């Protein structure tokens, strides 16, 4: 997926806040806060439902009480194996990946001030992919619990290379050079990956399953490996929210408001990289979440990052879980991978959004 990072015109809002009677700023603020809290609570509920669905549905038909029995380790061996070996990891990993990608996408769009920014821009996916393939080809490593380490390493190294090239070239991490560097590095890594998979069938077999983005055949050790990255990334992201609000007004005004722009950028890029690397390592490159979830969040709770961040996490997690469940139900015995479901649903939704909203030029 080639992304276009040129400063895109901001989308005009379709929300018309109804002009009510003049109320105090505090009153308006409090009402807005109450509304946003409600939204968050509803989303928590939605996520809980999605998680429940993820636990209940699957190619193995197990009744609700069977799932519960498996969960509490009181049921039959099959039930426990399915629940703990497949359903629980998928649910947890799916939620973590969705949340991480949602937050990473939000940060990317905030830093580049570009509503089309996607975390994949840093070469994370291609770096992870090459590392996974090398793992299979050179070390014969195929289990997901082991490949996740390769993927993490590859993702981080690739991002560092992209940043270095960008900074060496332009002195700042500004969007256009970053995207060009990201595209060039991604393509190069992709070519090397192609070279290997075309010579070695085992590599191709492993790679084609990994590269579509899937939650299948993953146990909790995958989550355990990715978790430190995700947690540190989350901390950096949370730390970055205040600065992002100011940066949304432009770097000069942000500085005028007292923010250290350089430090904010570094923190933000670090957070994005860790979150994207962790998510990609756990589930393979999953597209669209990072791109679309921030738009949904902004439509729900406005532009302040202390609200959009948790909402992105909740919406992202729910989205991935729902897509995974759909993939399991639609595919029958051989499920459809979550990455494919997301793209097949996400694509038309994205197009519909692009058509509906009037694009206002800057």
């Amino acid at each position, binding site marked *: 997926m080639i992304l276009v990072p040129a400063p895109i015109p901001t989308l005009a809002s379709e929300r018309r806040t109804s002009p009510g009677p003049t109320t105090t700023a505090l009153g308006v603020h409090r009402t807005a806060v109450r509304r946003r809290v409600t939204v968050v609570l509803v989303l928590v509920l939605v996520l809980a439902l999605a998680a429940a669905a993820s636990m209940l549905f699957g190619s193995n038909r197990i009744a609700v009480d069977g799932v519960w029995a498996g969960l509490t380790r009181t049921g039959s061996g099959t039930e426990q194996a399915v629940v703990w070996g497949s359903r629980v990891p998928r649910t947890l990993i799916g939620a973590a990946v969705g949340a991480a990608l949602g937050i990473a996408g939000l940060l990317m769009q905030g830093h580049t001030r570009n509503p089309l920014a996607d975390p994949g821009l840093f070469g994370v996916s291609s770096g992870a992919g090459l590392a996974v393939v090398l793992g299979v080809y050179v070390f014969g490593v195929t289990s997901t619990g082991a490949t996740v380490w390769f993927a993490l390493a590859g993702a981080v190294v690739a991002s560092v290379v992209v940043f270095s090239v960008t900074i060496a070239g332009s002195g700042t991490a500004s969007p256009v050079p970053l995207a060009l560097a990201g595209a060039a590095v991604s393509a190069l890594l992709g070519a090397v990956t192609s070279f290997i998979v075309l010579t070695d069938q085992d590599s191709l077999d492993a790679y084609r399953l990994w590269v579509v983005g899937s939650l299948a055949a993953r146990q909790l050790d995958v989550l355990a490996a990715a978790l430190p990255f995700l947690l540190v990334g989350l901390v950096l992201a949370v730390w970055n929210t205040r600065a992002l609000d100011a940066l949304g007004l432009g770097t000069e005004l942000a*500085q005028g408001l007292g923010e250290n722009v350089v430090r904010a950028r570094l923190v933000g890029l670090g957070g994005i990289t860790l979150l994207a690397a962790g998510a990609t390592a756990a589930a393979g490159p999953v597209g669209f979440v990072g791109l679309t979830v921030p738009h949904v969040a902004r439509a729900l709770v406005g532009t302040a990052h202390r609200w959009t961040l948790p909402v992105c996490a909740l919406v992202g997690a729910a989205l991935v879980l729902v897509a995974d469940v759909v993939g399991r139900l639609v595919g029958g015995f051989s499920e459809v991978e979550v990455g494919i479901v997301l793209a097949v649903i996400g694509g038309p939704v994205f197009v519909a959004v692009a058509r509906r909203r009037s694009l206002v030029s800057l």
Partner: protein
Amino acid sequence: MTHPGATIADAPVPTAGAAPGTDPAPPVLEARGLAVGYDRQPVLRGLDLRIERGTVTTFLGANGCGKSTLLKAFGRVLRPQSGEVLLDGAPIRKEHGRSVARKLAILPQSPVAPAGTSVLDLVMRGRNPHQSWARPWTAEDAAVAEQAIAATGLTEVAHRDVASLSGGQRQRAWIALVVAQQADTLLLDEPTTYLDLAHQLEVLRLVRRLNREQGSTVVMVLHDLSLAARYSDRLVVLHDGGVVADGAPHDVLTPEVLERAFGLHARVVADPVTGAPMVVPESDEHVTGLAGA
């Protein structure tokens, strides 16, 4: 405060502070030996300038003379290539960002708000320097934001999207943000560009009110010479890397300065309403070729 008469000199002209004989309070902002620019070539060289508390100063000059550059250097947005900027007598770069932001607010040219931001949302972001992890949003923040909105006359439209406002209202919303910062000093970069005359007056009257009622020190960059004369206490004209004229509007806006700094052939007459100097370009036959760069 009185200023000495403007002089046209080749060397930059320092302005005097209080009347001689008293200890001058440190100026709010001071530039010493400032050289600042964007590439290796500095736009301004060896510039000394003092901004006194409670005054309205306007930087004037032809396009590219460095007015915005100087303002940004004062606002800590641009790092000087040599020399330094002092805020309340202390080097501005040594001070913590938030602490500076509580004393000094800057509004850059043509700011853009993220889509879907209401006036209230925007103004409340001005409270950033007063907040920290330990002190998130409080009732006081909301109250200050509300006052800022009232001071700029935007109470009626406080919950409307910034992008849906008229040009003058939008600019006032940005000024409200800067007011909510509760800084004593405001730096405004071309706050009236792209506005029609009525809206330009709106903004300038608001600026004057902030100065008179709250004692804010204001430094602006403006293009319109006559409006600048009408609404400023002091004009600083920049040209060729330095200051060519500095003082009260009456003293600065003379045909000689206009020709030197702008390449403009014009007369200066008294504004029939306020008596402030008004610039009137000479007739077209008078002009022997296109003036200016």
